[in-house]
């Protein structure tokens, strides 16, 4: 592995740490997820390593439970948005013509509405469940993925080897998955990292506004909101989940930077 810098290793380490937390967090948690175990906003102690929150629940426990839910929803939303955005984007780029026009205009309309407001409207109408949340975030994010994958695929679709496949009589599915897709992966993987961060932050802001994951289930954005008042008392409790969000975002971005550098040098070599 050439060209791996310290920052990339740090990025991978952060991602690994958070992934393990998401997988095994509930097993490591000292208390139950919504168990009231102490006083309101108790300071750090051996009993409560990160103190307690506005209802006297252990912050470390809720952080560990929140990890799997927050990361899981964001990951599912990012994956789904890529599935939707990439299939439509590739279809538009490779087929072209009126399909491209119809899809592009539809996406333009969706993008014209501010994302957060659109999400707030939809979520206040629909029942607040994890599935609805994932779907809303995924669909809104997929517009950006569509734009990128269409642009990247268009560059590849005009190459002679794609024409060779068409002249051979290959079906659309082959042309997209075998000829176009492998040549568009590096920028899309980099984009996936960024999109995951956005989905993650988006979910956190929705939770902060009360439309994301519903209490008493723990999630990081919601934890910031629950404890927001503590700021006025000079307590750092709300900053702990905020820091968790920030650290994971930075970690993912470090890895994305590396991936972007790699794909741009590969392109230059080609």
């Amino acid at each position, binding site marked *: 592995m*050439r*060209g791996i810098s310290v920052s990339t290793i740090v990025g991978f380490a952060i991602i690994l740490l958070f992934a393990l937390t998401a997988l095994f967090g509930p097993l490591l948690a000292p208390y139950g997820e919504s168990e009231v175990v102490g006083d309101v906003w108790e300071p750090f102690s051996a009993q409560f390593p990160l103190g307690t929150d506005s209802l006297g629940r252990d912050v470390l426990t809720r952080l560990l439970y929140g990890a799997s839910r927050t990361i899981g929803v964001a990951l599912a939303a990012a994956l789904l948005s890529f599935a939707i955005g990439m299939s439509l984007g590739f279809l538009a780029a490779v087929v072209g013509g009126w399909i491209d026009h119809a899809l592009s205009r539809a996406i333009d309309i969706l993008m014209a509405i501010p994302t957060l407001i659109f999400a707030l409207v939809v979520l206040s109408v629909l029942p607040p469940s994890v599935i609805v949340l994932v779907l809303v975030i995924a669909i809104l994010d997929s517009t950006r993925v569509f734009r990128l994958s269409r642009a990247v695929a268009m560059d590849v679709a005009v*190459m*002679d*080897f794609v*024409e*060779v496949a*068409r*002249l*051979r*009589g*290959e079906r659309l599915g082959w042309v997209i998955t*075998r*000829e176009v897709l*492998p*040549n568009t992966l590096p920028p899309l993987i980099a984009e996936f990292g960024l999109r995951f961060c956005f989905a993650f932050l988006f979910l956190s802001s929705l939770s902060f506004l009360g439309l994301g994951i519903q209490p008493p289930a723990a999630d990081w954005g919601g934890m910031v909101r629950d404890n927001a008042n503590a700021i006025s008392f000079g307590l750092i409790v709300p900053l702990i989940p905020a820091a968790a969000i920030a650290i994971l975002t930075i970690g993912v971005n470090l890895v994305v930077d590396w991936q972007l550098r790699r794909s741009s*040098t590969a392109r230059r*070599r*080609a």
Partner: protein
Amino acid sequence: MSLLLEISDLRIQGQSEGRDWVELVKGISLELETGEVLGLIGESGAGKSTIGLSALGYAREGCRLAAGSIRLNGEELLGAAHERLREIRGVRVAYVAQSAAAAFNPAHRLNAQVTEAAVRHGIMAAEPALAEAKRLYAKLRLPDPDRFGERYPHQVSGGQLQRAMTAMAMVARPQLIVFDEPTTALDVTTQIEVLAAIKDAIRDEGTAALYITHDLAVVAQIADRIMVLRYGELVEEGPTRQILYEPQADYTRALVNVRRVELNKEHHASGLAAAEVEGVTALYGQFVALKDISVRVEPSTTLAVVGESGSGKSTLARVITGLLPPTTGEIRLRGERLPARLKDRTKDQLRRLQLIYQMPDVALNPRQTIEEIIGRPLSFYFGRRGQERRRRVEELLDSVELPKAFARRYPSELSGGQKQRVCIARALAAEPEVIICDEVTSALDAQVADGVLRLLLRLQAETEMSYLFITHDLATVKAIADSIVVMHQGRVVEQGAKHEVLSPPHDPYTELLLSSVPEMEIGWLDRTLAGRAAKKSRGELVLDSADR
């Protein structure tokens, strides 16, 4: 005459992506007198452009001038301060790039760009610089010299732009101009005009020049001396006459004698044509790209379609393959009428007609191995799998003279000529009746191209395929065609058996095309232009390419 440029034991190194420095130019020495023209010739990778740029004290990104010395009027350029180099570049040494279209800024008028160097360096005020530019336009035989420079780069033709770039280099009256393949991207009939203009201009102004090209016949018209380079080393150096008529090194001899591929076989037109195009007219929007074209490819022969850019020859390939359905006319394969659209054709019809592209780099998927690339038509058309498919891929690699081990490689690990052979193997895998070769050798060095042509001829003898060979290169046509179609502006100008088309009397356009191909003879350029002028004065019909 005095010594102008003296390069001694110059070493230039290049570095690619984290690897060690590699020597690209390995100890080259040269001397250039004032007013002398030195030709640097070699194939790609010979280091000729790198040496040319070093005369400006410049190394491309990823390269460095490692050792040796470059003296201009006795002043050392290697290691000179950046400010000093800036005073020299464009003033005492100027550069003319291969692609003028890429070298001009599309947002500014030609005059502003042509006079920029002289004005910015404070050699001339804007007014006299403009007057000088107009004088040079006239000298370079550009149309309407007073107004020419008021246009934007996209408003003039490629040949005119190349001459404008020469004017840009000359406006500050440099002592030395480095010409880097200035006519390579041009059509032959344009090349001859640009070449003549450059030759007269540098002779009249007394400018010395380094003329870089891969085409010995071109450099023979303009250079006093020639240096032959290969892999960054000097192969041979001498006066033009000596290099051309008494080459010493084997490599130079090979360059002089390139294109010895010759084909001597008799064919008799028999019944059904392998492929036939009848009365085809095709449009790009409103533009008529092909007008009533009828051509016929006889079984196991080669039909060469010759023409310059914009003649419609590549459009013809698109029509035959079904990528561009014609508005009228038919395409037949062994008498069987093909549907106009690609998607209406059957798998078998697609199989019988294969296409090989000009640029092997983009015709091969960089993410597939050679085995996947050649194997796909085998499984797609014949349902071959596994071991059986692998064996056939190896056979095909063998028939295009590539080692079997290449099956596991990716295209980026192959050279240009090898990639083109893989493209040929992929076409062969479909066992076609007709292969359309679209400028298949024009992106390759002469000797590599020669090998590919030999291969195509051998395969034709073995498999009885027919070729429709699209090219702008008449030397290739002479080498491999059985019959020839000459196209010009979307129409067929002349067609027939090779010897009929290539021997007089010609259609005026064919005449212009044939006479514009540089020959490896000193004085060819002057003789040809004098011949054209004489014909014109006798009132004969001569097409003129001056305004392209």
